[in-house]
């Protein structure tokens, strides 16, 4: 017997055919294999977006400049009322202006130096975003504080120095609305009046984002009345947001731009005859 048998089946040419069939059947197995790969990390989670900019016309938000970024700002408040004759809506001036430069020490900590030409007020401030989350609403919480020197009043000592601090609580509603409350305190609020006690205020801020670029902003800072500044600062503005800029133009009754100034109140009432044109431009700079 020259050919072997398995289970009675003769091997030989038939077994060769069987081998070919097995080989043909086995070949596709390798190509049908599937990867063992599985995603090894979840998608990056970024913090919630509430307000887009670091400030409204006056009140701050919990937004800070990114780590390593500079934020340049120039703001104007035109002294003549919009209704004043012969001033081209107040644009002929004079103006109160503020120049500022802030720096993001980290994605949560920002320091800035701003100068207002009102009283030659030089303000060194810091803002730290301490908390944020998405439940039950997107929210961010920051603390801010600083000190200001009013060089035009008394040099760099004594009553010309002011201190201020604020808690900033922001929340978003429906992706298109941002709300903020800013309880704040200013020590030595009226640098030209001796013995003024610290003044507490409550800032209220709302912004409606109509498109990716365009939004409406309203803010109202409830302050204690004083003889010099008997009214609450109020403003409404339109904000344009672009790749690295925020541009705001609006109306306000406050000509006071730095925190130790606008938190103390306004000299004019928010009525039609007392409204002033205001604008801010801020630009993110990264090197």
């Amino acid at each position, binding site marked *: 017997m020259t050919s072997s048998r398995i289970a009675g089946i003769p*091997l030989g040419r038939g*077994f060769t055919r069987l081998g070919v069939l097995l*080989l043909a*059947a086995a070949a596709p197995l390798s190509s049908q294999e*599937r990867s063992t790969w599985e995603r090894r990390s979840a*998608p*990056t989670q970024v913090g919630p977006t509430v307000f887009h900019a670091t400030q409204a016309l006056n009140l701050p938000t919990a937004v800070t400049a990114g780590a390593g970024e500079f934020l340049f700002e120039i703001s104007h408040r035109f002294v003549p009322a919009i209704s004043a004759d012969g001033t081209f809506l107040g644009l002929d001036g004079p103006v109160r202006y503020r120049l500022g430069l802030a720096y*993001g020490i980290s994605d949560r900590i920002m320091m800035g130096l701003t100068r207002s030409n009102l009283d030659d007020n030089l303000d060194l401030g810091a803002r730290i975003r301490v908390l944020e989350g998405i439940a039950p609403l997107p929210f961010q919480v920051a603390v801010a504080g600083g000190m200001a020197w009013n060089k035009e009043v008394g040099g760099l000592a004594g009553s010309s120095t002011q201190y201020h601090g604020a808690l900033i609580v922001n929340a978003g509603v429906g992706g298109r609305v941002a709300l903020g409350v800013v309880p704040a305190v200013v020590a030595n609020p009226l640098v030209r009046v001796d013995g003024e006690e610290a003044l507490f205020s409550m800032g209220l801020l709302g912004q409606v984002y109509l498109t990716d670029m365009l939004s409406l902003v309203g803010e109202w800072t409830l302050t204690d009345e004083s003889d010099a500044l008997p009214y609450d600062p109020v403003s409404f503005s339109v904000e344009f947001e672009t*790749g*690295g800029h925020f541009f705001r133009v609006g109306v306000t009754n406050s000509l006071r731009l730095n925190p130790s100034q606008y938190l103390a109140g306004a000299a004019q009432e928010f009525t039609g005859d007392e409204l002033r044109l205001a604008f801010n431009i801020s630009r993110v700079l990264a090197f």
Partner: protein
Amino acid sequence: MGRRSPRWGGWVLASIALLAPWMGAAQEYHVDLDAPRRVVFISSTTLDEFEGVTEAIDGFVLLDGQGLRETTAPGETELYFEVDLASLDTGIGLRNRHMRENYLEVEDHPFATFSGSLQGMTAHGAGFRVTARGAFSVHGVSRSTTISCDVTPREDRYAVACTFPVRLEDHDIEIPRIMFMKLAPEVRLELEFFLEPAGT
């Protein structure tokens, strides 16, 4: 010694058949997460150029069991790569947010993916110039595309470098037409990473 019996041929073929799943088993490579990785999109206009960078790329390559070579059978290969778009950093936080929220909409479409197979390989320098065809998906819109990569063996790994253009409107990504945000209609993608054998 007599003539080889036909039954030996049968034994050989049967043995090969039984061993084939192991001998010719697909080789799987994963992106080496411990090695440098870099994914860059470059937007270049006459007024401005900026780039977004991330290292968050992952994925795999299945080969036909005999390594990468000029005769690698395209049908025996499979590729999949994905990039975590929320991790892209353009260097400006505000611009990052615009990219995430306004243009890429990463909350709904967190990954850009490429899924396909190798189409051709030619010797190129110390490695291969590889052409892959498949579906590139970003912003939830998938388009058939062909990409070209340089693949260089490095011991048991492969170094991969790919470049290909992406037209934003092909993926329904809005191109900002207002001042300052100078995003080009077509951006260039550059990918660099290593592949290592799966399980290492």
